């Protein structure tokens, strides 16, 4: 661990490499994470488009498929194994390198220190190492596409025996799966470094007056997310090491006796437990869902307050809801395993705990609506995405109540219902949180405003698009359409659902297409956008009290002092309809 004292003389670095590549500056690192996530999300999205195309056109030969995958797509026709490897990589890249990376490491890195009045993260060198370790993990993951056999088939959950029994189980289960596990292990290391930094920074580097209960809710969500990451990724790392040993060292942690794979009897593994992997994986995997969504909740809470010019309704309740979601998140992993033949009493216990999470989630939703109620709502693009987040969170959350009940989950578990559910709540809702954060903080990060017209077109198209993709999935799931299958055009009882799948595919291509508007807006605004003022949204938190973009040490050598909470909007008799956190009391005295 680098001593934080080394950076106390915080001088701006010189030279391109130290300024932009191996930078210790949390702002540069935040932007690096953001662009790593942006790259990954387009890779992940492209994979999903290939899958959606194949699902409805399994017999259409595409010449360039054959160019990309000479064996796995010989003649331009995708093999089921190739479909599974696309699915695996889509899930893995999206979950780890987008949902885990951007909301927490990207925005969190950039804005946590500023919002709590610190000049940097607690351990800047560790921060830099954390980013480059993540980068290495991404390179190793992408490399899995290019080794013999290609990318692994075992899904982002990598269940053994498929993930553990080696090349015999299919193409991609050789070196590809090894690289997958290695990449995840590296990613775990990076996340642990990041978590240490986030927690130490929040606990110890808050400026004078910034009590815990005055922190913006974004900071609370980053803190709790870091704690979840700390406890979860440590477990995944341990499990990953065991899985890798099963593959390369001949151990039998997860591989059972009596495996018969591709006409081969497996004699050199015996006695292991595939269920053990599921327990270890989901002990990480469920908190991971909250790692993805909590920062989005923080951004949404922040934005609903700013753009309806009202304090967050029930700030304390929000904080306790965040904490209890974090706590309960560690007690519900079994609800991913109802199908595993677990004792029904265990299933009931996990089910009850799962229902309990509905309570803090409902508190948050109620408070979001309470925040909006009677407010002077400004429908800027950032606000639209925050409202979209609330909508998607509720839609995705409600289907979660179905899945949390063992009796229903046994039916739904391997259907598209689950795909619809988790894409709504974990995928798209979290992505909307990122869009909201992008439109809200872009002026601070780059000193330019984003284009509102393009932003709104992008929002409405995306919002309608994602509902068109994922709502029908619930219906085809109820109709019994299995997930993870590459082709069901020849299944009689699913014939009537094919047009629905075609619709979803069109919607997916449409939604992916309109993301170009976002890219254009992002890069055009970076170069040509209108110059951003210091506080374009009339917000109260500390990042809006400094220039856009902020100077190297954030506060220009001044140590900010905070006098009040983060949500002083529309205070009666105050001079303006907001009071900054660092406005001295006498400024607000008229209103007190």
């Amino acid at each position, binding site marked *: *661990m680098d*001593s*934080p*004292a*080394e950076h*106390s003389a915080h001088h701006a670095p010189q030279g391109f490499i130290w300024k932009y590549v191996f930078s210790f500056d949390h702002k540069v690192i935040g932007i690096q994470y953001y662009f790593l996530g942006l790259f990954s999300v387009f890779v992940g999205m492209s994979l999903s488009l290939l899958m959606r195309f194949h699902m409805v056109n399994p017999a259409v030969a595409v010449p360039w498929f054959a160019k990309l995958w000479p064996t796995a797509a010989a003649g331009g026709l995708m093999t089921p194994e190739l479909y599974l490897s696309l699915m695996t990589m889509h899930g893995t890249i999206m979950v780890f390198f987008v949902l885990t990376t951007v909301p927490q490491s990207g925005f969190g890195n950039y804005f946590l220190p500023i919002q709590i*009045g610190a*000049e940097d993260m*607690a*351990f800047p060198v*560790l921060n830099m190492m954390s980013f480059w370790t993540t980068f290495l993990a991404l390179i190793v993951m992408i490399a899995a596409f290019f080794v013999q056999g290609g990318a692994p088939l075992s899904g982002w959950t990598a269940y053994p025996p498929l993930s553990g029994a080696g090349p015999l189980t299919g193409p991609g289960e050789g070196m590809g799966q090894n690289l997958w596990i290695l990449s995840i292990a590296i990613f775990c290391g990076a996340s*642990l470094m990041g*978590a*240490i*930094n986030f*927690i*130490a*920074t929040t*606990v*110890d*580097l*808050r*400026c*004078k*007056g*910034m*009590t*815990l209960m005055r922190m913006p809710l974004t900071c609370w969500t980053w803190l709790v997310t870091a704690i979840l990451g*700390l*406890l979860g*990724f*440590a*477990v995944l*790392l*341990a*499990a990953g*090491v*065991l899985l890798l*040993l099963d593959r390369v*060292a*001949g*151990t*039998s*942690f997860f591989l059972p*006796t009596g495996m018969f794979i591709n006409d081969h009897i497996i004699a*050199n593994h*015996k*006695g*292991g*437990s595939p269920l*053990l992997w599921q*327990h*270890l994986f989901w*002990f990480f995997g469920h908190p991971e869902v909250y790692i993805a969504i909590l920062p989005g909740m923080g951004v949404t809470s922040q934005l609903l307050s700013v753009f309806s010019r009202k304090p967050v309704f029930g700030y304390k309740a929000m904080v306790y809801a965040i904490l209890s979601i974090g706590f309960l998140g560690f007690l519900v992993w079994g609800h991913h395993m109802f199908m595993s033949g677990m004792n029904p009493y265990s299933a009931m216990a996990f089910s009850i705990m799962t229902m309990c999470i509905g309570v803090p989630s409902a508190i948050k939703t109620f408070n979001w609506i309470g925040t909006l109620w009677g407010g002077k709502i400004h429908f800027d693009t950032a606000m639209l995405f925050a409202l979209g987040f609330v909508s998607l969170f509720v839609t995705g959350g409600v289907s979660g109540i179905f899945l949390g009940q063992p009796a229903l989950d046994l039916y739904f578990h391997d259907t598209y219902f689950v795909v619809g559910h988790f894409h709504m709540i974990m995928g798209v809702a979290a992505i909307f949180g990122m869009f909201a954060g992008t439109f809200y903080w872009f002026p601070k990060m780059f000193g330019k405003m984003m284009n509102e017209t393009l932003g709104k077109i992008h929002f409405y198209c995306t919002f309608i698009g994602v509902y068109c993709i994922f709502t029908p999935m619930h219906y085809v799931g109820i109709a019994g359409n299995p997930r993870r299958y590459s082709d069901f055009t020849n299944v009689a009882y699913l014939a009537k659902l094919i047009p629905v799948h075609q619709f979803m595919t069109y919607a997916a291509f449409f939604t992916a297409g309109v993301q170009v508007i976002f890219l254009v807006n992002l890069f055009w605004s970076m170069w040509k956008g209108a110059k951003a003022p210091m506080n374009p949204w009339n917000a109260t938190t500390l990042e809006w009290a400094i220039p856009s973009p902020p100077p190297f040490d954030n506060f220009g050598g001044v*140590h900010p*002092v905070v006098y009040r909470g983060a949500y002083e909007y529309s205070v009666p008799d105050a001079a303006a309809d907001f009071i900054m956190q660092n406005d001295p009391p006498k400024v607000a005295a008229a209103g007190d």
Partner: protein
Amino acid sequence: MDMAASLTHDHIIQGPPPPIDPGWGGGGGSGGSGGRGADRRAAFTGLFVGLAACTMAFAALSSAFVVRRGLSDMNDWVSIGKPPILFVNTAILLLSSILLDYSRRALKAGNRGRFNFWWTAATVLGVLFLTGQAFAWYQLKQAGVFISTNPSSSFFYVFTAAHALHVLGGVSALIYVDVQALRLRLGPSRRTAIDIWAVFWHFLDGLWIYLMILFYVWG
């Protein structure tokens, strides 16, 4: 946090004591003092958070151990004969922890010479522990016990290797502090490093004793 706070105030009398921030949460903050106290506190928070991560990783391995050990239907768990040198290694690691604390007390008393001596001794013992562990693996190898031999040996190798990796990190840190000490470069930030790595070393000590109990009682 109490533990962190007491560690924060210990062991330093030479030079000006770091100004301590009163407010954890409260009205805290580093004010205009350059953040020295906040840095030290942050370093300790980082340490304890890091130890929590280590604990979780070993807890995960332990739960895998318990589950795998408890799968009785196949009955393929055969306890391996553990090399007796493990007890010697345990004694060496314990001794190094004790010496590390002697050395910190010496520094507290202002005796840098003794600090250097004991710290160097503890570092050497740390290296000796790793050598001893390597010898234990060698003995197992000679006895024909490899990682894939049976679940007992698998877990033995996994646990000892994971612990050894952490010890390797700890020893590197001890060497770093030692080099700085011998070059008489123990500024305030390195005083923090001394305390941080000593606590980490004690943690590895406790972890090893836990692992020994696990191996001999249930392994």
